[in-house]
């Protein structure tokens, strides 16, 4: 008698476990295989920590698949012509109250530009629903990536700046994505432009940058403590210096919004990235550009750098005093 009861007990215990294991086994193995990918070539370029890197790689891997399958094939809003080079806009963004507003008006601008591909990189651990939904609703051609900048980044005391300039890791991720998606042999013409989400861009700017052969430059308003900063152009139409007050002897004394790079050049020099650490204030753009071009190769646009087509506007941080400690408004309402 006890023997049978024991056997019954054992069977009752073991049966659900075997069911569980078979079911779980099926679903667990498949995604594990997908995540494992050889990252050998990029090992030297690891920016984030190990664990977060594989996660963000996983998310970008998913994005690549999604983009190729759905966005590129079917979504072609504003006019898309096969003759024009695609403008790849790289925008780093981060969550704050004005984020949705900034991205909305940026999208309203981009909807006018033909052959535009928006690469939006969030500074977050995972892609937020707010941005995901917003991107889908705009109808733009986009790629949604994310990588989180480590918040408590500590350096040795002797280094002057303890923080990674905002947006650097995100821009680098986008460059890496471009290098993985396009190969140098492809005939797809493209231009890469770094557009921050709070600047203002005129539509003329995008047409000016479309003819970039290597790197093109133009003036930017409200930077360097001036009404505008601009490259100095000589009579032969070549850039020979920088009209700026703040450290004009930088290799490239230009703002992030003041230049665009031909995609071919990005693919041709796969080791060129923004330098993460040890970059002095104002030298971030130079850290990338000096690996790509010399001053002589720069192409001045905007009527030989005499017109302002982009403004480095900054949005005020909204005063939220009336929210109080607990929050007065419904947090489920998205702003």
């Amino acid at each position: 008698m006890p023997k049978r009861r024991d056997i019954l007990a054992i069977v009752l215990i073991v049966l659900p476990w075997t069911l569980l294991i078979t079911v779980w086994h099926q679903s667990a193995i498949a995604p594990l295989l997908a995540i494992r990918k050889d990252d050998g070539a990029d090992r030297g370029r690891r920016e984030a920590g190990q664990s977060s890197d594989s996660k963000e790689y996983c998310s970008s891997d998913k994005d690549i698949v999604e983009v190729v399958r759905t966005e590129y094939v079917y979504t072609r809003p504003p006019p898309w012509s096969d003759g024009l080079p695609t403008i790849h806009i790289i925008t780093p963004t981060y969550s704050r109250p004005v984020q949705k507003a900034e991205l909305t008006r940026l999208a309203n601008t981009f909807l006018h530009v033909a052959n535009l591909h928006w690469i939006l990189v969030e500074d977050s651990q995972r892609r937020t629903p707010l941005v995901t939904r917003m991107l889908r609703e705009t109808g733009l051609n986009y790629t949604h990536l994310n990588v989180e900048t480590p918040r408590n980044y500590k350096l040795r005391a002797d280094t002057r700046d303890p923080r990674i300039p905002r947006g650097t890791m995100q821009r680098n991720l986008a460059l890496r994505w471009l290098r993985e998606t396009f190969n140098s042999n492809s005939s797809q013409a493209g231009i890469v432009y770094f557009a921050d989400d709070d600047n203002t861009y005129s539509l003329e700017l995008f047409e000016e940058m479309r003819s970039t052969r290597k790197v093109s430059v133009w003036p930017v308003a409200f930077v360097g403590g001036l009404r505008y900063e601009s490259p100095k152009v000589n009579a032969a139409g070549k850039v020979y210096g920088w009209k700026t007050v703040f450290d004009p002897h930088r290799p490239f004394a230009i703002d992030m919004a003041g230049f665009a790079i031909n995609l071919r050049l990005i693919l041709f020099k796969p080791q060129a990235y923004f330098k993460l650490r040890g970059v002095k204030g104002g030298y971030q753009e130079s850290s990338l550009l000096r690996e790509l071009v010399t001053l002589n190769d720069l192409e001045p646009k905007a009527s030989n750098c005499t017109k302002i087509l982009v403004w480095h506007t900054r949005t005020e941080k909204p005063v939220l005093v009336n929210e109080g400690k607990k929050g007065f408004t419904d947090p489920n309402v998205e702003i």
Partner: protein
Amino acid sequence: MATRMKLKLKTVFVLYFMVSLMGLIYALMQLGQRCDCAEHDMPKDRTISRLRGELHRLQEQMRKAEPTKLPHKLAVKPAQPTIYIITPTYTRFVQKAELTRLAQTFLHVPQLHWILVEDSPHKTPLVSGFLASSGLAYTHLHTPTPRDRKLQEGDPSWLKPRGAEQRNEGLRWLREDRRGQPGADTQLGVVYFADDDNTYSLQLFEEMRGTQRVSVWPVGLVGGMRYERPVVEGGKVVRFHTGWRPSRPFPLDMAGFAVSLKLVIANQDACFDGDAPMGFLESSFLQGLVTMDELEPKAENCTKVLVWHTRTEKPKMKREEALQKQGLGSDTAVECVRQPVLHQACECQRDGVGVFFFFFFLL
């Protein structure tokens, strides 16, 4: 024999306990991770992309069928009410940038007429040139603010109500223009007061187009809160959700309401009172036009934010600004309010397994 049986059962239980404990720990570790919902999302994705493809094919066909100058503009229906946007503006560094991105938004909206009123004794060439090349239907007006009502250098922005004279000038022009064109059709329209530094989503304009008297909706980033909004019950506005002086007759922002053209013309004297106390500018206009229960709530019964009261920083014209723009200044130190990250609801087997393990552990 009995002890051997007992022993065996004991070991079984011990084993059981260990396995379920390990499983629970594993499941707990997995709980924070991203779900792989590919199998569930893929068919949905496919349907979405197929439908999107069809939609775009149809849109392209439509575009090819009608030869319009701006192909992305929607087909204009003859009886669609025109939206008249009254925007006061004044000369400052960021003016052209603000107007540029505002125009880029307006270009997407069909049947829109922009009434831009400068705070200036005469029309400035910057604005004239800008409007001429904008591609929009516009009216360029100007009227200077009297000196005693003007903000001085160093005054906080909320000290005196701004733009009252300019908006009144816009209303005056509109009324005069409509008087010169009598007819029921010309009375069809909506008037909206859009400041040049706010941010507007395209959906907002479609929401306001059907305004019969005065329609209202939430405004983001205003009143010291994430958003301000009218509270709607039974399809009617019963009160206003605002953190600042809710006892005002109409505690909403300029960007939070639109008035039908018919109402504007019917009440020739309704205008903004430039001497109104802080925050009462909107009420001074709306008081004579409508009562609270006549308000038409839009934006899904005032639950969606379609307009944001953004403000642009005054660019610092000092050389130190260069360090700020690199993100090495105060920017990175300020951890702004973060949006709560909603965990993606996902029919994931992994989470189910975790629950399973938990119950077994309890057993």
